[in-house]
């Protein structure tokens, strides 16, 4: 592999790259159409394989823990895993959109923390739960818009903008809660829908993944998001409104994070200012990256982030069941992120070969 630099994404028309192209064209002189179709199928398979490979790793991890630990294959345990992964998935769905358009929201974890207290502020003022949730989510959207506008208007890196916002929101959460947990609303149909009934948080997560994946891969907005992340100048030259796309994605990420926080608080039955935070944000970003999303923008899938979160959830749960020190989870997480990135690079080299 010496001399083969997989990280070079910008292709140079080097002489070394033309022989494989000639080879690929040569074997199918009789049926160029069929050869082309086959190459396309192989190429598409490899692109899909990025998600597929994570899925395979998930299954392998699940089998490992099912064999070695007791109680992994129970409905109760699946429910436990669902409780772990649902909030990560919901936050990750928004982070994927932002990462794909070349941005990141480090404050999403504290939006997750703050959102339930926004709701209690409104319910404390006598508002019924439904409008209180809507108002809370609108405020979360506004936080995202502020992130986006500071980035787009002042051309300040989103890493910095949202880092500042993260600390700001952490403080606001502690102020709003007096650093004390409060009990969450516990009765009514809306409470059941918003996290209380057994699988509702996971169902929300799956619905959000489905919707966001369709938005990302099957709408003009999604293509614009990918274009902005891959080539911001080129996207602007093509007339894509790059700032608007970024702002919308900041709003989406923040709103989803807030929604995840509300669901999780209602599920647990208590709004806790130590819930969420950086851990949730980093696990969501890790899920996205393990799931194949490029940290520098341009590519990624929401479904991949779902599988990335599932892998982390299975490992986390498996460690608990097998009695491994939970601290070792972070060791595995660290290795998993780097290994996933290496796999991504390797797969992109394979894809490059397949499509020539």
């Amino acid at each position, binding site marked *: 592999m010496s001399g083969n630099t997989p990280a070079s994404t910008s292709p*140079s028309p080097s002489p070394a790259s033309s022989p494989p192209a000639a080879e690929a064209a040569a074997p199918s002189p009789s049926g160029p159409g069929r050869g082309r179709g086959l190459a396309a199928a192989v*190429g598409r398979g490899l692109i899909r394989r990025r998600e597929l490979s994570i899925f395979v790793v998930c299954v392998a991890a699940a089998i490992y823990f099912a064999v070695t630990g007791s109680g992994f294959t129970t409905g109760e345990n699946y429910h436990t895993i669902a409780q772990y992964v649902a909030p990560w998935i919901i936050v990750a769905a928004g982070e994927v959109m932002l990462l794909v358009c070349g941005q990141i929201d480090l404050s999403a974890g504290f939006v997750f923390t703050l959102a339930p207290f926004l709701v209690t502020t409104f319910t404390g003022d006598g508002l019924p739960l439904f409008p209180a949730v809507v108002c809370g989510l609108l405020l979360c959207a506004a936080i995202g818009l502020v992130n986006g506008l500071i980035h787009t208007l002042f051309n300040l890196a989103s890493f910095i903008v949202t880092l500042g916002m993260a600390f700001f929101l952490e403080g606001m959460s502690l102020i709003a809660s007096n650093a004390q947990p409060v009990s969450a609303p516990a009765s009514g149909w809306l409470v059941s829908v918003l996290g209380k009934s057994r699988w509702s948080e996971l169902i929300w997560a799956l619905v959000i993944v489905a919707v966001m994946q369709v938005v990302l891969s*099957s709408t003009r907005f999604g*293509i614009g998001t990918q274009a902005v992340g891959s080539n911001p100048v080129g996207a602007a030259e093509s007339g894509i409104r790059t700032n608007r796309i970024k702002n919308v994605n900041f709003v989406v990420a923040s709103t989803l994070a807030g929604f995840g926080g509300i669901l999780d608080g209602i599920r647990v039955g208590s709004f806790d200012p130590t819930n969420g935070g950086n851990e949730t944000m980093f696990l969501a970003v890790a899920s996205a990256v393990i799931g194949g999303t490029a940290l520098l923008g341009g590519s990624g899938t929401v479904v991949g982030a779902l599988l990335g979160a599932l892998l982390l959830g299975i490992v986390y749960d498996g460690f608990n069941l097998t009695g491994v020190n939970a601290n070792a989870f972070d060791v595995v997480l660290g290795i998993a992120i780097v290994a996933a990135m290496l796999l991504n690079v390797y797969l992109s080299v394979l894809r490059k070969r397949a499509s020539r």
Partner: protein
Amino acid sequence: MTSPDDVDGAGGAGSGGAAVPAQAGPRESAAPGKAGAPGDVVMSVEHISKRFGPVHALRDINMTLRRGEILGLIGDNGAGKSTLIKILTGYHQPDSGVIRFDGRETQLRSVVHARALGIETVFQDLAMVNDLPVYLNLFLNRELTYRPLPFLRRAEMRRRSREALDAIGISIPNVSAEVGQLSGGQRQAIAVARSVYAENAKVLLLDEPLAAMGAKEAGHILRLLRRLKERGDLAIVLIAHNYAQVVDVCDRVNLLQHGEITFDRPSRETSVAELLELVHAEYRVKA
């Protein structure tokens, strides 16, 4: 980089365009009926200036684009060529001066606005999205959807991309391949195809479309430009550093120096040697 010998070879083949399919892309069949006659002025700029902070990129630009004409725009690096193109395409707004389009004074508000008027551009950096497949780059920011539903018509875009590339005579094996995996020449060919493909194009601006191309690929593109010109309804501006190509394919040459157009003449009344002399005279080392 192409050597002068190679270029002569490509230029010599220019008249023998029979190797390429005669009809040049889907947009050719969609004849814009109300278009004016060849030779009409379709777009002009008067006294355009543009500053970037202390840099006076353009001082006083006067330029006329006519239907059925290829205008070569040459000048040294930093002379303002790309800035002028970006003003003509709505990406930058001029500080002063007037742009006329179809006889009317027009403010180009954005790239989208310019495109809507029929001004198509191949930018120097190609505006290619490496992570997207060829067909989505060809349809970038004008993707087809199942209206009123917002979903992309991928199969239709793939089919039309295939047709457009075949008709133009550009060899791209797989329209679903990511653009980042293609060669520089292929990427430029796609960028040209994208602007040519536009259905209502009246003005075609090409900022160094041949820079990364070999002589053979460049010959393809130059023949394509000649065919488009012969239709008579399109005004083409070509920025190139290779004066052999400019003299060969263009009808008229403008030289941009220090933010002003200092030379405007039919290309048959000039020569590669004269253009080289004009551009390099002020930097001559020996007396």
